[in-house]
């Protein structure tokens, strides 16, 4: 008993010849269907080159078009022919010209001999189909498709929409339940002949000839009527990408294909010299009775599809530039934004770096220059500290920075004096952890040597900016982890919020903080705010800062031992 191959060929005839020869010379009959558009000369060349093998035949040539009935008709012809001409054949294996056997054909024969009545055909109901990508899983059985998808796409789409709109439905023959699956199958003589010799075949053919891509459903559906033992999987390793076109194998897939243990793979790029040479060589290593195991290949191709559809989160580049809202992750990793901390605490950056690790930058969006960690002129990814370059594409600057430093947490300072362009970006980014001590910007003014009227003006400006920023952070669109304290609240009990923030970053410290950052001297700050108020500038983002006893409070707070057990 042997297996016979039906080969559908439309290009790369030289490769088809090699493969057919491989099978035929090992005692497996082959019937080849060559697509009608292939020119006569090439066809005759193929016939002549295989004329030395008496178990290779050619079937009646039809013009085949992808997605149309012609492919099924061609398969029917060739299958009928092989069953009639080669009575020894027990299984018929449908292959294409781009298929390549990966294991010696004797192993396939032995494999099928152990399973004499099994039909290997992927066949699942339309509800369970995961791969169909055109949204036509069920509708391919109930609509009409008179227009070519390849040549008249617009007409095809429009006609589908039209039928949906008027609610057109074809009737599915009662005796069948539509099933879909890979068009590359291996059926037993019993099942295949039952399908081909069915008294109702005329009606089935008539119905399926108007189904969309019938080669994925004709045998898959009808096999269910006759088969006693269906293995719903294909013996051909064939992967499809998200547009439903087959993945192609190249020379560099050699090892991968070897380890897949599959019998036949498709589709092979015709110029993959190394693959053809290796797998068609007479001493290709046998694997005995090993089961096919395509999972490794599955993984690679699944990843490829994911890359094409989802991409790498947080990456903006010349072939991935998502529109706003479609980023699937605005940035690639979590980061922290601190507002007001470096104003309230002395040398906050150093302290934070000790506490949480990673990179702690200064004000990345400072007006004069980018304050990278240690004030480096250039940082990861060769980002430049020029404020002009940064502001030229301020959001891109942040996403680039986070992308460039993957694997290392970034924290930076921010405040109302900085470029505010990124407010929406960070507030809507789930990766951002934003902690704000509102009003802390006033400390710098408080310590400055400016004239009071200038201070007042500047305070008014900064407060307006901060209010706008806070409004964004409090909006309903915010996805960042935002914590806002007024300065008054924070000064009251600084350790607790700090501990929370640092626990959340949670890189290094699982212990309690042992050392708090040193707060700047706030003696007279309350009075300073009062003066602003007295001059008509209502500074309120700091919260209710006590005016009178602040000195006392500050003294005590400075003396407070910052060792918390």
């Amino acid at each position, binding site marked *: 008993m042997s297996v016979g191959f039906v080969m559908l060929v439309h290009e790369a005839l030289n490769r088809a010849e090699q493969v057919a020869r491989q099978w035929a010379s090992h005692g497996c009959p082959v019937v080849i269907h060559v697509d009608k558009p292939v020119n006569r000369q090439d066809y005759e060349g193929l016939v002549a080159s295989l004329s030395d093998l008496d178990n290779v035949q050619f079937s009646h040539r039809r013009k085949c078009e992808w997605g149309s009935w012609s492919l099924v008709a061609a398969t029917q012809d060739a299958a009928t022919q092989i069953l009639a001409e080669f009575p020894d054949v027990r299984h018929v294996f449908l292959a294409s010209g781009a298929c390549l056997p990966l294991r010696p054909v004797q192993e396939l024969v032995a494999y099928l001999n152990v399973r004499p009545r099994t039909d290997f055909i992927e066949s699942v109901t339309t509800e369970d189909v995961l791969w169909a990508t055109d949204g036509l899983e069920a509708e391919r059985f109930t609509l009409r498709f008179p227009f070519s998808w390849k040549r008249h796409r617009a007409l095809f789409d429009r006609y589908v929409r039209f039928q949906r709109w008027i609610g057109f439905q074809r009737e599915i023959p009662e005796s069948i339940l539509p099933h879909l699956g890979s068009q590359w199958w291996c059926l037993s003589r019993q099942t295949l002949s039952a399908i081909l010799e069915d008294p109702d075949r005329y009606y089935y053919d008539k119905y399926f000839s108007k189904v969309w891509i019938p080669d994925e459903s004709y045998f898959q559906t009808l096999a269910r009527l006759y088969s006693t033992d269906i293995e719903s999987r294909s013996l051909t390793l064939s992967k499809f990408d998200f547009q439903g076109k087959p993945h192609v194998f*190249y020379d560099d897939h050699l090892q991968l294909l070897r380890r897949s243990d599959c019998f036949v793979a498709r589709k092979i790029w015709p110029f993959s010299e190394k693959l053809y040479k290796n797998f068609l060589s007479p001493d290709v290593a046998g694997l005995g009775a090993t089961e096919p195991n395509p999972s490794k290949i599955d993984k690679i191709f699944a990843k490829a599809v994911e890359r094409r559809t989802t991409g790498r989160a947080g990456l903006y580049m010349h072939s991935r530039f998502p529109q706003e809202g479609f980023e699937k992750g605005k940035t690639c990793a979590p980061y922290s934004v601190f507002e007001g901390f470096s104003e309230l605490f002395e040398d906050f950056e150093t302290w934070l770096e000790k506490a949480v690790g990673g990179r702690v930058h200064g004000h990345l969006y400072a007006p004069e220059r980018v304050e990278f960690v240690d004030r480096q002129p250039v940082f990861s990814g060769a980002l430049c500290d020029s404020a002009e370059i940064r502001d030229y594409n301020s959001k891109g600057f942040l996403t680039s920075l986070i992308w460039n430093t993957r694997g290392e947490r970034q924290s930076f300072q921010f405040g109302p004096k900085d470029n505010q362009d990124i407010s929406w970006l960070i507030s809507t980014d789930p990766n951002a952890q934003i902690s704000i001590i509102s009003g802390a910007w006033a400390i710098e003014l408080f310590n400055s040597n400016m004239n009071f009227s200038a201070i007042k003006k500047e305070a008014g400006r900064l407060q307006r900016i901060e209010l706008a920023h806070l409004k964004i952070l409090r909006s309903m669109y915010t996805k960042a982890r935002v914590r806002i304290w007024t300065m008054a609240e924070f000064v009251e009990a600084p350790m607790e919020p700090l501990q929370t923030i640092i626990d959340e970053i949670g890189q290094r410290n699982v212990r309690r903080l042992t050392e708090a950052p040193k707060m700047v001297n706030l003696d007279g700050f309350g009075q300073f705010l009062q003066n602003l108020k007295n001059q008509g500038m209502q500074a309120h983002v700091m919260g209710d800062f006590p005016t009178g006893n602040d000195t006392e409070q500050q003294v005590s707070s400075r003396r407070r031992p910052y060792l918390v057990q």
Partner: protein
Amino acid sequence: MNGLKIYRRRLQRKRWQIRALRKRRELTSVRNVTAKIRPDDVLLFVTLRNERIRLPYFLKYYRSLGINHFLVVDNASTDGSREYLEDQDDVSVWSTDASYKRARFGTDWLNWLLRKYAIGHWTLVVDVDEFFVYPFCDTRPIRALTDWLDASSIRSFGAMLLDMYPKGPVAAQPYGDGQNPFEIASWFDSGNYQISRNEDYGNLWIQGGPRSRVFFPDTPERAPALNKVPLVKWQRKYTFASSTHMLLPRGLNFVFDEWGGEKVSGCLLHAKFLNTFVEKSAEEMERKQHFASSQEYKAYYEKISENPDLWCKWSEKYINWRQLEILGLMSKGNWA
């Protein structure tokens, strides 16, 4: 998209096509072996001037990728470039003494040659100092890529220009005839690019890299564009709009995905920053044939002639395309 805009772009395209037609008179065929071109061949188009020293490696590199025919416009070379090219079997040469600038930096000449010889072919349009890198380029010839693009109904393929530079002063290590330029200029900036969308033509506009960092830190908007669409399956109605940065019809510029996925893309390694460039930039300033007329570019060329060091401690050393893909400078997309 309103009809008027579409119509205006159509007119623009026609205008450029007519311009290319007009500019064809400036080209003199020196050696035309285009009869050898077979229907499946992948073609390469290039305009050059005085690049004799770069040519051997350039041709070797692209032959090894599987380019079948080179079509070259020689813009009045005096260093034997033309003679060298005439000796090559797979090179057709046209020469011209006309102004490079007035041919829109060679675009008009190439548009004409493309229209005449490239229709139906996959064509790569590059400069002599640009080296095309695409996913799997070390194991798969360019034909594998173009076959795959054909099967996926993709008409154009994007690549970002990646400026490469040596460590130390640009001119410190002299480039030799036939040498791989990336033995010297093996460093690049991995993540300082600014991308924005050009709504009119649909393409992305990318700037940044070492040129922006070193030469245009105060005026980043003046930095040269790095977005390119070098590989196109040419059709009669296509035309390059501005160098190879963008094309018309604008659908060809959509080489990126805007819904979060990644399309397949490559890079053009730009071996500009070698000693030859420092020497040339003086001459270029003289000729004013580049974008050199503006003040910024004068400053740019002046800085270059000072032989600067573009290297910094965050520069990456080039290894292979996989490195570029990991860094996010190109993508395999769904080609596996």
